[in-house]
């Protein structure tokens, strides 16, 4: 048993950066193809991060360096817990702590871009956190437990029971992956109206830490996605693949919206769909 736990911890720690980086590279190629460009090599995100580790360390603020480390720690712990099939609520809260540390780090610098980006990131967290909790509640209502273990014990895919909550998860995914129309605080595209928003004052090795943490988070949210089809691995891979493809497609066809639109639309649509699904689960 202990051997299995140790193996899962190592798997979680390694899978985050490895899978996350590959997904990011695939994402950049696909995005380039959508724009009829060739795009960078698949391993480009790894080159970027290695290069950033080799840059001169310019720390604007000691707190910012601390916050970047805390963000990475929280993101990796939440992914390891996911691999251990632990408690969903615990994973969500640890992930939220990490996200808030990233914001605090941005707030600790005086750059107006960083400040505005941090404000927007807080609004994004405000938008998606309740929706994530709703998804956890839906899983609880169906399986009778918050443990991921219980989801894997199901005989039928979760998607058939929680179709609306899956849509809500896609909404959260778009925010979490920093894709248009919700890449308000910072985006993967080099330029935006806030320069690099939240990440403006993170630089060199510290920026590399936040990038790796983002990979952990990407794998975590895609992991949540895979929970909706646990009965066979092929189904899970297919579901995650299609979802991610649609995310990149949405990123390329939509413009960036403002935070009022995000919060209004996100809560109105997200909470309504969640409640409909939850009531249906409860009444049935």
């Amino acid at each position, binding site marked *: 048993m202990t051997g299995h736990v140790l193996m899962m911890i190592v798997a979680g720690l390694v899978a985050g950066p490895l899978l996350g980086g590959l997904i990011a590279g695939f994402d*950049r190629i696909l995005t380039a193809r959508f*724009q009829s*460009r060739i795009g*960078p*090599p698949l391993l480009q995100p790894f080159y970027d991060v290695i*290069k950033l580790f080799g*840059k001169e360390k310019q720390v604007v603020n000691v707190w910012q360096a601390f916050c970047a480390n805390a963000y990475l720690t929280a993101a990796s712990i939440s992914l390891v817990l996911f691999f251990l099939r632990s408690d969903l609520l615990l994973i969500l809260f640890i992930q939220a702590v990490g996200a808030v540390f990233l914001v605090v780090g941005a707030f600790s610098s005086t750059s107006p871009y960083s400040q505005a980006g941090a404000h927007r990131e807080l609004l994004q967290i405000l938008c998606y956190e309740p929706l994530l909790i709703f998804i956890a509640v839906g899983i609880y209502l169906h399986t009778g437990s918050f443990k991921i273990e219980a989801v894997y014990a199901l005989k039928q895919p979760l998607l058939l029971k929680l179709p609306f909550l899956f849509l809500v998860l896609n909404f959260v995914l778009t925010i979490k992956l920093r894709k248009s129309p919700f890449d308000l605080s910072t985006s993967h595209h080099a330029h935006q109206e806030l*320069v690099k928003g939240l990440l*403006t004052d993170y*630089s060199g090795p510290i920026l590399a830490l936040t990038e790796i943490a983002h990979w952990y988070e990407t794998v975590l949210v895609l992991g949540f996605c895979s929970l909706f089809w646990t009965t066979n691995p092929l189904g899970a891979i297919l579901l995650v693949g299609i979802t991610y493809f649609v995310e990149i497609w949405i990123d390329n066809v939509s413009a960036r919206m403002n935070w009022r639109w995000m919060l209004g639309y996100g809560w109105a649509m997200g909470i309504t769909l969640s409640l409909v699904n939850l009531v249906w689960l409860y009444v049935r």
Partner: protein
Amino acid sequence: MFEKILTKARMLSPWVLHFDCGSCNGCDIEVLACLTPVYDLERFGIINTGNPMHADIFLVTGTVNHRNKQVLRNLYDQIPEPKVVVALGACGLTGGVFREAYNVVGGVDKVIPVDVYVPGCPAKPEAIIDGVVLGLEKFRQKASAMHS
């Protein structure tokens, strides 16, 4: 071994900061043309960042004047080491047709050290890409000098 990987990663991921130092926008349009599907700079891992703190290569177009020389200096200082400066176009090199004007300091190298000069009025996208690639070689030398 690690040194080798780092050098390779550096050469494959140059992030560019583009600063218009009072150019007529001719060179700037050519710089942006490099990002379009025709030239697709991202093939080489090149990203046009808007942030000096994330940049490796500093692309400067246009003449330097007394008002913006501080801005130029400031941006240069904010880029973390190792870094390379590429001056673009006739104005960036010497001040071009504006060199005699009373408010003009001259080329970019009057204020910050320049590593690569790309001539042209405006510089062609091919020449700009060539200049950046030449800059990468300088970048490698600077990086290895930094470690030794």
